[in-house]
Each structure stands twice: as C-alpha cells, then as structure tokens.
C-alpha cells in the first residue's frame, strides 16, 4: 500500500464517519434523507477506491448496488412516503443535539481504541477501514436509539448497514454472494418497513413510535 492510495482510502472512510455525524444532528426529514443519499454516495466512492486498490472487480458490483439502491431508489422512496404521509415537519431527538454529538464522538473514540488494539499487526489499510466502519455502525445504532420517528429509525438502520459494507469491502476477498444478499435483505427491510409505516399511520395518524407505546399502555 502506497502512501497516496492509503491516504485516499483513509480520507473516504473518514468522510463516511463525518457524514454519519451529519445524519446524527439533522432534525428535518427531507434533509435527513438527502444526507443519507450523500452517505451512500460516499460509501460508493470508498468501496470503488478499495476495488481499484485491491484490484477486485467484483467490488464494483457493490458500488453499483450502493449507488442505485441506496443513493437512488431508497431515498426517493422514503421521500415519497414522507410526502404522502405529510410528515415533513420537524423531528425531535431524545436529549439535546450537543449531548448526542458528544456521545457520537465518544463512540468514534471507542471504536478506534478497540480496533487499533485488536487488529494490531493486520494490514494497516484494513485496520483503519475497520475502525471507521465500526464507528459508522455505532453511530447508526445511536441514530436508531435517539430518534422517535420511524422513518429516521430506518435511516439509522440503513447507515448502520453501510458501515457493514465498508467493513466488508476493506477485508480482502469478501465473496459477492454475501454482498448481494445483504443488499437484498436491506431492500426487503425497506419494503416491510414501508408497509409497516403506512399501517402504523393508518391506525394512529402518526409514525411517532410513541403512539405504539401508548397503545400498549406503557409508561415511557
């Protein structure tokens, strides 16, 4: 691994983490979906660079899937849903944005500490990549935990999945089958959740998951 290619891989993976942070504080749904599309584009760029550096042409399939599915179809579909449900209003987060950002930074630090310790002696490119990927995954989980709106929880889930793809692309020689099956599972998750969303709204006139909790008679 030469200095330049290493730096570029590093840069792209770091950019993905940065976009994850952007996802973390977006409090409007449209903006959130746009940033998610950006997330997918950055992922595609990062995986494409890995494909080029590792000379692994099958990774270009991953790139195509990421671009078409995650930067195109899914954000557009979610846009449509949001418009049809008429919920392009502000979304609330649990805890303040400042606290959430601080927690996110803590997670990134944690993933660095873990990965750099555990993978000592591994290929440096894979190492950095894995650390960033873990950070993206944790940030995705954080998004899911801090949001109440079902749409933004989906976005959190999808960004988590992007982190998985980044990790897999960094490891040399992941079979294509795995990649395709992940892509399909995400697509199916989208369909299921989409149906689910409409059903929730039909019944409760909102996609705030609070409504579900209230329906179950839970204290919050």
């Amino acid at each position, binding site marked *: 691994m030469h200095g330049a290619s290493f730096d570029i891989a590093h840069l792209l993976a770091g950019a993905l983490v940065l976009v994850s942070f952007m996802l973390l504080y977006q409090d409007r749904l449209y903006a959130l979906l746009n940033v998610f599309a950006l997330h997918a584009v950055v992922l595609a760029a990062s995986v494409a660079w890995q494909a080029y550096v590792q000379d692994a042409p099958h990774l270009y399939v991953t790139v195509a899937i990421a671009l078409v599915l995650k930067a195109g179809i899914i954000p557009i579909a979610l846009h449509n849903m949001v418009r049809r449900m008429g919920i392009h209003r502000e979304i609330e987060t649990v805890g303040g944005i400042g606290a959430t950002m601080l927690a996110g930074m803590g997670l990134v630090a944690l993933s660095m500490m873990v990965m750099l310790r*555990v993978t000592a002696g591994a290929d440096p490119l894979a190492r950095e990549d894995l650390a960033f990927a873990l950070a993206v995954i*944790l940030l995705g989980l954080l998004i899911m935990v801090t949001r*109440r709106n079902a749409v933004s929880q989906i976005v959190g889930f999808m960004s988590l999945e992007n982190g998985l793809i980044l990790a897999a692309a960094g490891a040399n020689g992941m079979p294509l089958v795995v990649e395709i099956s992940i892509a399909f599972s995400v697509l199916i998750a989208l369909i299921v959740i989409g149906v689910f969303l409409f059903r929730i709204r039909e019944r409760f006139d909102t996609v705030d*998951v609070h409504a*579900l909790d209230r329906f*179950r008679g839970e204290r919050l």
Partner: protein
Amino acid sequence: MTASPLLALAPPPLAGSLLAIAALLALGPLAVLTFRSRLSSGLIYILAFVASVTILVAGATHLWRSDSVESLTLALGLPSLGAHFRLDALSAAFLVIVDLGAAGACIFAIGYGRHETARGRVLPFFPLFLAAMNVVVLAADAFSFLMGWEFMSLASWALVMTHHRESENARAGYIYIVMASLGTLALLFCFGLLAGSGGGYDFAAMRAHSPAPVAAASVLLMALIGAGSKAGLAPLHAWLPLAHPAAPSHVSALMSGVMTKVAVYGFIRIAFDLIGAPLWWWGLIVLLVGGLSAVLGVLFAMIQTDLKRVLAYSTIENIGFVFVGLGLALAFEANGLTAAAALAFTAAIFHAFNHSLFKSALFLGSGAVLEATGAREMDKLGGLIHRMPATALAFLMGSVAISAVPPFNGFASEWLTLQAILLSPQLHEWPLKILVPGVGAMLALAAALAAACFVRAYGVTFLGRPRSTDAADAKETDFFSLSAMLSLAVACLIVGVLPGLVMDAFAPAAQLAVGAHMPAQIHDRWLSIVPVAESRSSYNGLLVFAFALASMAATVLAIHWFASRSLRRTPAWDCGFPNPNSITQYGAGSMAQPVRRVFADFVFRAREQVDMPAPGAFEAARFRVDVRDRLWDALYAPIAGLVAFVSDKLNYLQFLTIRRYLSLVFASLIALLLALALWP
C-alpha cells in the same frame, strides 16, 4: 483367539451395527403409521429385537475376535465434520451391555406392550431410544456423540411422559428434562474444552492433544456432571427416582439398566480415553462421589414403599459402585499401577454389565407385577409367590444377584471392586491411602443394606398374605414377559458361576482405557478368578454354586428322610395373635423402620408422629412418617427458588418498548466494546 469360520463370514461389525441403527430409526416412523393396528405393537418390538440382537452380535464378535479398531465416516451431520463412528473394544463392550438389556426389554414388551393403553406414545419413541443409545456408544466425534446423547434424553423423556396426565409423571418429566439439559450443557462445555481453540471435534483430534492441567480438570468435572447426572450420581440423582418409575416398565428397565450404562460409557470415554494422563486427585473426587451415591442410594431405596422406586434408588447405589471402581482405576493409573488400575476398571465395567442384567430383570418383574395387580405400592401387594410363581422365581434370582449373594453375578463384581480397594495401600498419596478404605467401608455398608433392602422388597411383595384384592386375584403373566425375565435371571446365574468368561471378554476394553488388562482368567484351573495373586485371594463361582446346590439338596433330602415320616398338620404359629387380617403382617414401612430410625436425623430428617385418639373416642390411631431428602432441600430447592426469583424479576424485560430494546442492545454492545478496549 481363534475365529470360527461362521464368525469370519459375518459382515464387518461396525457397518452392520450402523445398518441396524438405521433400521431402528426407520421403525419410529413405521410405528407412527401403524400404531392403531393391533398387530403393530408385536411387530415393532420383534423388529427392534432383531436389530438389537444384530448389534449385540456385532459387539460380541468384535470383543470375541479381539478385532482391531474399525472406523467409518459418513457424510451426515455438520458439513465440515461429517459423522465419525468407531468401534473399539470399549464401544464393543458397551454395545454388548446396551443391546443385551435392550433385547430383553424387547421380548418382554412383546407381551407387556399388548396391555399398553397409549400405544401411540410408546411405540414410535422406543426404537428411537434404542437407536440413540447405540449411536452414543459408537460415535467418534463430539457432534455425533451429543446428537445421540440429546436424542436419547428426549426419546426417554417422551417415554417418561407416556401417561402424562398423572400429575406425578408430569413433574417427573419436567425435572428430568431440566436435569438432562443441564447434563448435556456440561458435556458441551467438556467437548469444547477438549477440542481446544483449534476446534477439532473429532475424537481422534482430541486424543492427539492433551489439554492443559486446569482445562483437563475442568473437563473431568464437566464430564462428571454431564455423564454423572445421567447415570444418577448423587447429588445429581434427584430426577432418577422420579423418572425411571414413571415410564412403562420395559422402558424403566431400559433407563435403569441400560441408559445409565451409556452415561457410564460417556464418562469412561472422556475420562480414560480423551483427556490423556489422569492426576491422582481426580480419582479421589470420583471415589467420594461414588461412595456417597452408593450409601445414599441404598438408604433411600430402603425406605421407599413403591416397588419401582425402590429399584430406581437401588440403581443409584449400583452406579455408585461402578464409579468407585472407575475412581480407583483413575487413582491407580495416575500412580502408574497399571495392573491394579486394570483390576479396578474391569470390576467397574463388570459391575455395570451385571447391573444391566439384574436391574433389567427386576424392573421387568416389577412390570409384570404392576400389570397383574395394577399396584406399585408394596403395601397393596403380598403373597404373589403363589399366584405368579415364575415371576417370583425370576424376581428372587434378580434380588439375590443384586444383593451380592454368591454364586450370582453381583457378588463377583462387588468382590472384585473390594479387591481393588484392598490394593489401595500401594497408592502414594496420603489422602487416597486414608480415604479409600473409608470408601470401602461405605461400599460394604451399601452392599449390606442392599441385601436388607431386597429382602424387604421381595418379602413384602411376594411372600405373606395379599394386602389387597387386586393382589389376591393376580394371574401369572404371559409367556414372552416370563421368558425375558427368566433368561435375564439365568444370565445372572451363568455370569456369576463363570465370571472369568466375562472378565476376559472385557480385557481389551481395560487395555484400551488404562493401558493394561487383567491376566486371563478362564485358563485358570477349575475356573477360579484370581484378581491379583493366588496367595492373596481367589473366587470360584462354580465351586460355590456346586456347594450351594449340594448343601441344599442334602438339606432337602435330610428333611424328607428324617422328618417326612413324622409329618403332622397343626395350626401355623400366629405370632401370638390369631388375627387373619393381612394388615397385621410386617409391611413395607415396618421393615424399613429400623434403618429409618438409625439414620433418621442424619440422612432423612425423618419425623414420626403418632396421633392417639382421646380416651373413649372411636377413631383409629394414626402413625405418620415424614421423610425429607436433605440434598433436595440443600441443593435443589435454593436453585429452583433463585431461578424463580430471577425470572420473576426479568419478566419485566418482556414488556419494554422498541426503543428500549434497541437501547439495551446498544448499551450491551458498548459495554462489551469497552471491556475489550480496557482489558489489560
């Protein structure tokens, strides 16, 4: 040994056994399809009998010809592993033990099964149970072993639950399945440790590398918990006296006589074959647990009033004997005394074999009694010797054998175990030198109490006057049941008269387990067995048998010769009160009373309470005995309470919101990552 031409023609034993196992597996679905037909019961049992005999012949052939090890790998099970099977001397010995008992149970069931009301719950599981036990004995990788083991547990559980509407059976089944899962879990850990980080789940790989001392000790403890709980070692025996009697009687015979031996096999396979060289204190643990089981088992057997439960508790005692032998073998082997280790090991495996014979015979006998009278409570039986003479004879032979009375087989193996204990001064470690004779004393106590226990069981059940109309109207059982019981009982006698034959057959197994075998016994003049040296001790079953026969014949002749001429009929002596009511006889409770009183506070926490009616009142006086199992109170009740408490508290987790679940997952992930990051 020379192979006869007939044996040379037989198919390779391992392949033949596996085919027979496959046939048994196929019988399960066949039984599901046909159980409604009247003929189905007999057909299934006959086919199962044929399969068992096939495997029996295969195992015996292997032992007899002293064949080399046979292995076979089938493309079943885990894709990367396959299913490994292996037939060596140890497996062959246990194949013989398993399938001899199985064949007996099958014949018995041809007759007994006709009266089964819930055929559909017995017939499908019975052949599966047999197949699973054979798979365990033949398996040569952890996956197949555990599959067979778990299959064995589940099939026998289903059989225990045959009459599940009786609340006692449902409780027995519940406790059984919990304990069986615990045992399997322990074995899973055990194999995990044996496989090491490399993950060699094949027994050959485990044999090739021996674990570090700490890991090896954990493996032994796990094997003791896993196999010991199945075999019924105290303090993990709680399920056994509940579950074994709950099943139909031929299944009880299998569970007590055979399944416990499969557990013994599991322990031997792990502790003697897979771990590598033992340490001396392993033997000490096994010895103490075995001695404790022997004494506790027989004490509880002594005070039970349910005939099948007496037999189940006595199984615990006999398993204790077997494990004492195994513990001694471990201790001797660790000390490099291989000849002594071979003696102890042979004694253990011989006792396992004998127990499978007489315990099967006894359980089948209790089944015949149950079928004839509908009663298991001894206080409802009595006088059956006149109504069921052949059953009474078989039960008597079994009782004499289990009480270790020469010339029956129980004596030979218990004598061998005690001979091995007498070699303990050769051990180097002081704790062993001091404690082994103590364990020997416990065994002696257990053997004596076992005799008392079976005098009581036989006397109350078969002698005296009937205590209920059902017992008075009992009829002798059918031909198949009788032939099964009598052949097992006769086998007890033959093995007892010619113990050297069986000990020689088990010699290759001892060679495999402890690296030495006892000197060949059968070539000795007059068929004596000489465990160590002739100057030290020897036993000749044939001589004892001949002497017993001769003295009995002489006594009978003498009585008839001298006394018959002066024969006169008078009223029988009536113990001072001429009350013909059967309740005035000695009953099960009254015969247990001396032992119960002696061990009242120490073991049983027995409380006797007499409620005398007030003077002038007409109600009967009441005598009540309250017996508690200390182990249950001290070990099981707190665990059950803890589990109930924790699950009650954790129940709250069932009703969280989606986001809280996510937060929980997230928090635990973070906690794990933090642990990973901060671990020194």
